């Protein structure tokens, strides 16, 4: 960055002026709320009521039980699986998408963005219908003769997984898109002139050259699905209720804000450290 009045250090108050208002807004309405949440997580809960200011680790203590350990483990595992599926499907899909004509790409992108604007409630309802016995896809299979009689596939683990992947898929594709659309087509062609079949070239070159994007895609899908809280209730059974469901439960049904906040923070720390670990491993491999 080299220019007269861009890219230099701001000196005067006037130089700083534009940043004051946004910084203030973010500070007051994001940093402070976050801080309050952190504070509340150390408060004591008043049964039936709310909380009172004390300093206690009880909320974190309650969380450190086998039960919540299982819930957390399940949530992380589910999100990891969903992330792998999203990227596993989304990567080849995005690659193929970027090879289409620009017009078709735009159509696809508009479609994906519209899908992305569906709320969790609607997606949950639609999939529970699609996977139901009475109105679902299994009727199609029966009509085609692949199935004896319609089956119910929801609620259940598979239904939940499908719903989660459905929600995260557009985000994953949009994240992978820039990298893949910028990927030099000649890389694949070069591999082919050197004797790699198209499939071989895809795995040795496209995948290899997009390692970082794949990693970010995994992280995004992971963090994103970790935050999903309605689908497990709509498409899953109680054993599939994730940590986000528990947090929402505490806030919505139990009015136990301190415990909810403690869980939320714990969840954030765990996912951030997993993300950090993944990045670290990725970097090591790339180096």
């Amino acid at each position, binding site marked *: 960055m080299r220019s007269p009045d861009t890219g230099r250090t701001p000196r005067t108050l006037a130089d700083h002026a534009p940043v004051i208002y946004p910084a203030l807004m973010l500070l007051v309405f994001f940093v402070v709320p976050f801080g309050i949440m952190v504070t509340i997580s150390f408060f004591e809960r*008043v049964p039936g009521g*709310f909380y009172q200011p004390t300093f206690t680790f009880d909320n974190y203590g309650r969380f450190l039980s086998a039960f919540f350990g299982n819930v957390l483990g399940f949530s992380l595992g589910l999100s990891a699986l969903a992330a792998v599926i999203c990227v596993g499907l989304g990567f080849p899909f995005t690659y193929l998408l970027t090879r289409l004509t620009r017009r078709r790409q735009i159509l696809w992108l508009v479609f994906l963005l519209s899908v992305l604007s569906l709320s969790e409630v609607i997606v949950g309802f639609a999939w529970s219908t699609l996977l139901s016995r009475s109105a679902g896809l299994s009727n199609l299979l029966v009509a085609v003769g692949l199935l004896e009689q319609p089956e119910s596939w929801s609620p259940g683990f598979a239904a939940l997984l499908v719903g989660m992947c459905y929600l995260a898929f557009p985000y994953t594709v949009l994240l992978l898109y820039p990298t893949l659309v910028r990927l030099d087509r000649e890389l694949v062609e070069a591999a082919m002139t050197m004797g790699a079949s198209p499939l071989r070239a895809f795995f040795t070159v496209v995948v290899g050259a997009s390692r970082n994007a794949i990693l970010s895609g995994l992280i995004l899908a992971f963090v994103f699905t970790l935050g999903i809280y309605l689908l497990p209730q709509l498409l899953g059974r*109680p054993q599939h209720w994730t940590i986000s469901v528990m947090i929402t439960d505490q806030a919505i049904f*139990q009015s136990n804000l301190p415990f909810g906040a403690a869980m939320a923070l714990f969840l954030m720390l765990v996912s951030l450290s997993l993300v950090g670990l993944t990045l670290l491993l990725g970097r090591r491999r790339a180096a």
Partner: protein
Amino acid sequence: KTRAAEPLKVGVYGGYFQESFDKFIFPDFTAATGIEVESVAEPTGEAWLVQLEQAARAGRAPADVNMMAQTPMLKGQSTELWVPLDPAKLPHMENLLEQFVHTYPDGRIDGIGAVAWYITLVSNTDVFAEAPTSWADMWAEDKRDTLGLLALATNSFLLEITAETHFGGQDILGSEEGILEVLGKLAELKPNVKLWYRDEGQFQQALQTGEIPMGQYYHDVAGLAAAEGFPVRSTFPKEGGVNDSGSWAVTRASTMIEEAHVFIDYMCQPEIQASLSRNVGTAPTVRRDLLDLTEEEFSAVASDIPPIVPNYQMYAERGDWLEQQWIETITS
């Protein structure tokens, strides 16, 4: 007659329930008192309580008068959420059965019975030609993956149901060991449960389509659905339906205390209670002898089989512990 500038906001459960109130009750009330009413759809009691509480702290009232189930009524007391009601302004209160006058421990009135309802055993008539007769049927082998049950301890009353069905009464719920034993029995039910629902609509939809052909549900709403022609029936099991009720309570953030009293008093009249029974399908909260309901009309909304009475005190006393045990039982 008074005329308020703003409508009185009355919270009732959404869906069929709210629609029936809008159609049969509120217009008459406005006509009689000149007070405009705006109905507000409430979610499940617990969620609504949290909403009311948060709003009250901010000095706001999403609804002035709220229909609250008993457990949230008790929870609300602990933060003085409910405005104490003035008996002098409620002349019709005398009509009520005594269990429907709800008070703070110190005797101040904080809730007046609005409606009573039963949670019964419902089934899809297309799937089950024969109506089930006992809560125990839920445990049957052949009911694998067919049930829809409420997901919260505090609104499903499954502990009471299990105790009555398998332990000869609710005495066993007096101790933590007893509760755990009941939960153990309840755990045997899990393979049969397809859906643990938090929200009525989710189960209602599944029940109507036969996707989940059996479960516990509200007698009144099931009746309304059946009346609309859905293949749904509600049965009072031989152990009795769960008799729960909703009370009118006024949030302390309300600025329309006067109008609220007028409304609550209006709702305590026998004619109105009868109208509720006929049109909404709820059981009355006033003495039977004051009502002009026929025997047939009465049995449509209630039953002569002695009901299972929810153990509200247990929920109030063992709140967090019970909730944790419950969630661990059903999710594991």
